[in-house]
């Protein structure tokens, strides 16, 4: 079973879409996730009385109309920020909400272009946001699972499963993209809603039993007859007939057949987490805490066909548009406008005519106590929705309602602390700065354009019509009549003095664009290591720390949100996957298996990793690693552990050298992958031990038989039995479920070391004293470690060089001995000599000694030529001058 799992459903009884007569209006009998993604839950769709249904819709209306003014304000603020980020910044508030642009021309034709060109955007807000987003999305937050009750076995097992599952969730959701989304929303919109659900989506994840279409081998242009081609297999997958078979068929029949077959398909699903900004979701604005919110609304604008595919049981009733309430119109226009990336509040009509707003509203049970709900409806709602309700509407249509707690699927986060739900965003302080930057830059731009000095020319001396028609003359030209008092030169051409701009304005603009906006937004250069101002030792570090502290608060909030979402994803997997196993290959982790039955059996808690430090940038990591490498050169202890295979893999990864091959790193990965298998069950019985035990039992039975019959047991047999008994005692009764290689095809030292590290680490200790299953897994790893150690010792012993035989040589200084003794000593060693030879040698040495003291230095070799001052000849192996040769 892959990470996408089929839901245990027997739905699919509904007939094809769009047919008024055959559409099954019971959602419980309709195909879910076949035509479009559907947020699945094992909870059945509620069968409500008309009164309770009406009450639920009434509550949705109340939620929509709550905080009308405050909601409008937060939408306009978020909308403005999103426009600003894109660079649409000359915005004026529209009379009926939204935005209009001053001097908005069609830009068709010269006059339109001229009108539009009077204002320009100097986008500082967007790029500063990029800096903050880049800093916040350096590294995906790490989360850890813990058993809700540390002493309860099922909780312990569930936390282990959840820890593996989080990697699958991370892989399937591209958490980095999610982090970037969340950070960008923190910058522009502030509040973020994270929605986690189990999404059935055949269009995205495929269907149960899907096979990959085989392709024609690349080296064969004409495959043999019968070789499956991509097209035929694809047709099979899609349930279509091949082209030859299709020719005689009726197209309508074919489509009908495809329709009914697709309903039988079981779509695959995944735990999905998405981020939504203020424009997409609405909450009661005055409430401080998520758990006190009686409702949360999430609106998605989908193509009408997608909305019909999502809710096939009401497909023919779904039309483009919203729920019809005026309060939602501004939100919708804002969403459409931002996604279409068009200026002001403009939205194309065709999109409004195609899009249906699908609205999910979560209610806490407290909402059913509203005074507008009748007692009967109240009782029914509280009974049917004990955890709260999820109401789904497509346009104005009621799609479904089911028992669902918002705490199991939603988490709301803000970048900064504050009261209420419309808090300051990371970028909001920069909006007013941005507006003034645009005004002043436009002012300066206008100044430069308009203040080319006007030139006056003597109308009698020049042909003014001809001069005015000259297109390349900047500045306007006018005729003048000769005035008394002008100089001779000025009587022909008079140029007005050039106005000077406000001298402080350019500097002021620069200050606004750089220092001020950096200080206000927190997007300081020091965030990425650059120092500003005084260049003293440590100044960049201090500035970086300050800059990181500024974004510490949003970072901690992101961590908490990711931890909550991870916990919700685990709960979704536990509830929606029917206790089946998930198997998925995760790069860097190998094949992961998660038993969702264990997730369901226990309760887990999830927290952001205990290290609250802000993630380092790659540059910081690289600098740290480089520093440690240089330190390890002079510190053998540091070198020993830093350059071990386990850590070297981290070093290579930290230096971003993916293809850098580290000796032993593959063995580390191999061993880590083996842990996954080793921890699934306990050790197995040693077949060798069992064989010996069986042989021993047979032999003992033989001996007993002989004793009964009075036969003599041969002494050889007794000796053999004693040997077998010894062998049994030396053989372990159990062995690891993964055998180690009995040769050098595995790196036994590295793998043993990895096992050792695991056994003594928190994980190993947890297994050592955990549930019986965990203890068995620990024993399995322990035996595996023993096997590696034994094999490593065996190989080392085999490869050990033969020991040197004890030396028979001895040394003695015969020159210090009397000549006779020296002669005898040499004779013993086989060297022939006489005492006279030694005596002569001693005499010569004495003469040299005397001469050395008696003859002055000056008399030694008087005619020796001066030593030439040349470089010594290069030593063998020394660097030679290079020479080019063909």
């Amino acid at each position, binding site marked *: 079973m892959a990470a996408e799992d089929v839901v245990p459903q027997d739905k699919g009884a509904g007939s094809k879409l769009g047919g008024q007569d055959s559409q099954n209006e019971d959602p419980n009998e309709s195909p879910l996730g076949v035509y479009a993604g559907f947020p699945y839950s094992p909870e059945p769709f509620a069968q409500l009385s008309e009164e309770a249904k009406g009450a639920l819709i009434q509550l949705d209306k109340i939620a929509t109309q709550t905080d009308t003014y405050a909601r409008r304000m937060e939408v306009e603020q978020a909308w403005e920020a999103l426009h600003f980020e894109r660079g649409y910044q000359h915005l004026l508030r529209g009379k009926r909400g939204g935005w209009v642009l001053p001097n908005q021309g069609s830009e068709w034709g010269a006059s339109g272009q001229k009108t539009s060109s009077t204002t320009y955007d100097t986008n500082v807000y967007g790029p500063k946001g990029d800096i903050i987003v880049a800093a916040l999305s350096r590294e995906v937050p790490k989360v850890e699972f813990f058993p809700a009750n540390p002493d309860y076995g099922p909780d312990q097992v569930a936390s282990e499963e959840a820890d593996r599952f989080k990697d699958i969730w991370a892989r399937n959701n591209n958490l980095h993209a999610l982090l970037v989304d969340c950070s960008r929303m923190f910058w522009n919109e502030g509040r973020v809603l994270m929605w986690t659900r189990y999404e059935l989506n055949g269009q995205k994840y495929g269907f149960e039993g899907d096979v990959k279409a085989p392709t024609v081998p690349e080296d064969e242009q004409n495959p043999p007859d019968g070789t499956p081609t991509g097209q035929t297999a694809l047709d099979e997958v899609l349930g279509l007939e091949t082209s030859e078979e299709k020719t005689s068929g009726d197209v309508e029949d074919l489509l009908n057949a495809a329709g009914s077959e697709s309903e039988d398909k079981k779509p695959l699903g995944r735990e999905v987490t998405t981020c939504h900004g203020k424009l997409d979701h609405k909450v009661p604005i005055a409430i401080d805490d998520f758990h006190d919110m009686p409702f949360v609304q999430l609106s998605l604008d989908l193509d009408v066909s997608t909305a019909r595919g999502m809710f096939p049981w009401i497909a023919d009733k779904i039309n483009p548009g919203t729920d019809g309430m005026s309060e939602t119109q501004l939100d919708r226009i804002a969403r459409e406008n931002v996604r279409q990336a068009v200026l002001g509040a403009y939205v194309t009509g065709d999109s409004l005519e195609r899009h249906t707003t699908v609205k999910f509203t979560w209610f806490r049970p407290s909402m059913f106590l509203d005074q507008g709900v009748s007692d009967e409806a109240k009782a029914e709602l509280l009974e049917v929705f004990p955890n709260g309700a999820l109401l789904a509407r497509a346009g104005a249509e009621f799609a479904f309602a089911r028992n669902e707690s918002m705490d199991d699927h939603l988490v709301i986060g803000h970048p900064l602390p504050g009261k209420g739900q419309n808090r300051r965003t990371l970028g909001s302080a920069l909006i007013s700065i941005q507006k003034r930057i645009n005004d002043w830059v436009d002012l300066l731009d206008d100044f430069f354009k308009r203040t080319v000095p006007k030139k006056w020319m003597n109308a009698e001396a020049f042909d003014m019509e001809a001069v005015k028609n000259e297109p390349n003359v900047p500045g306007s030209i006018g005729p003048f009549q000769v005035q008394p008092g002008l100089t001779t030169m000025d009587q022909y051409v008079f140029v007005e003095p050039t106005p000077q701009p406000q001298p402080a304005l350019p500097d002021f603009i620069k200050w606004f664009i750089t220092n001020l906006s950096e200080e206000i937004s927190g997007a300081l250069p020091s965030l990425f290591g650059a120092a500003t101002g005084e260049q003293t030792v440590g100044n960049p570090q201090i500035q970086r720390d300050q800059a990181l502290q500024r974004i510490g608060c949003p970072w901690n909030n992101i961590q908490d949100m990711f931890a909550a979402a991870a916990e919700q994803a685990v709960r979704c997997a536990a509830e929606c996957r029917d206790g089946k196993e998930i198997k998925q290959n995760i790069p860097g982790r190998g094949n992961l298996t998660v038993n969702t039955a264990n997730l369901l059996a226990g309760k887990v808690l999830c927290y952001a990793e205990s290290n609250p430090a802000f993630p380092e940038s790659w540059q910081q990591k690289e600098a740290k690693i480089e520093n440690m490498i240089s330190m390890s050169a002079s510190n053998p202890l540091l070198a020993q552990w830093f350059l071990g295979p386990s850590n070297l893999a981290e070093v290579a990864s930290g230096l971003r050298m993916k293809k850098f091959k580290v000796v032993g790193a593959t063995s580390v990965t191999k061993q880590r992958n083996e842990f996954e298998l080793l921890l699934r069950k306990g050790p197995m019985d040693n077949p060798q031990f069992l064989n010996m035990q069986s042989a021993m039992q047979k032999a003992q039975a033989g001996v007993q038989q002989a004793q009964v019959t009075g036969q003599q047991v041969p002494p050889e047999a007794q000796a053999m039995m004693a040997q077998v008994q010894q062998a049994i005692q030396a053989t372990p009764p159990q062995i690891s479920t993964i055998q180690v290689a009995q040769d050098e095809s595995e790196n036994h030292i590295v793998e043993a070391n990895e096992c050792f590290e695991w056994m003594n680490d928190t994980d190993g200790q947890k297994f050592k004293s955990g549930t019986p299953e965990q203890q068995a897994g620990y024993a399995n790893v322990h035996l595996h470690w023993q096997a590696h150690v034994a094999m490593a010792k065996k190989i080392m012993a085999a490869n050990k060089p033969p020991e040197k035989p004890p030396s028979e040589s001895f040394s003695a200084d015969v020159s210090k001995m009397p000549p006779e003794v020296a002669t005898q000593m040499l004779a013993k060693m086989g060297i022939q000599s006489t005492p006279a030879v030694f005596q002569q040698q001693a005499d010569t040495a004495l003469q040299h000694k005397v001469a050395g003291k008696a003859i002055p230095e000056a008399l030694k070799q008087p005619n020796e030529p001066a030593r030439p001052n040349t470089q010594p000849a290069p030593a063998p192996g020394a660097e030679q001058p290079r*020479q080019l040769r*063909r």
Partner: protein
Amino acid sequence: MAKTLVGLLQRHGDTEANEANVFRSRLDPPLNNEGIKQAEAAAKSIAKMKGMKIKKIVSSPMLRALQTADIISEELGLKTVQDRGLISWNLGFLTGMDKDKYKDVLDLYIDNPKVPVPDGESLDDLETRLEEFMDEELRTEGTIYVTHNSNCVTIENLIRGNKDGRPESGEKSVEPGGTIGIYVDDNGTYSTEVLFGVEDKAAFVS
């Protein structure tokens, strides 16, 4: 022993920086009038030259070299290719400094060729770059290499197989705008000879 002309080392023409006696290195001054004349003279001489069919012109990307190369390419009707292999020795902080005043400093880096000039490159780096470049380039014949004096001196060192020439030390392979021929004999040994322009006879004692 017969030797064959296989390439030309062309020193760029004069610039104001040459006249000011400062380290040019990565300064990018254009040719002055004298430099343009020198390049034109070189172009004419090369056009009349016999003994080697010129196939391409490779130039350092520095403006003075490119201008020289352009003048020659116009005369020969060939295109100029830029290659950073021929760029001048990066003298880092010495760039733009007075040559006489900082001679001792330069000597330090020439005598210790492995030590990089702060913010620049070591002499060894320059040698390695030029060796790799020329080793590859000289496999094909008929190229004009337009470059700088320090590079000419270093390439000649590489060809002779010694370190007699001291780049940037006032020693010249040839006067600005001059041309040096690169020859190869039957044994595959390269040698150089000034073809056009004034040779600085004092520069090398082979």
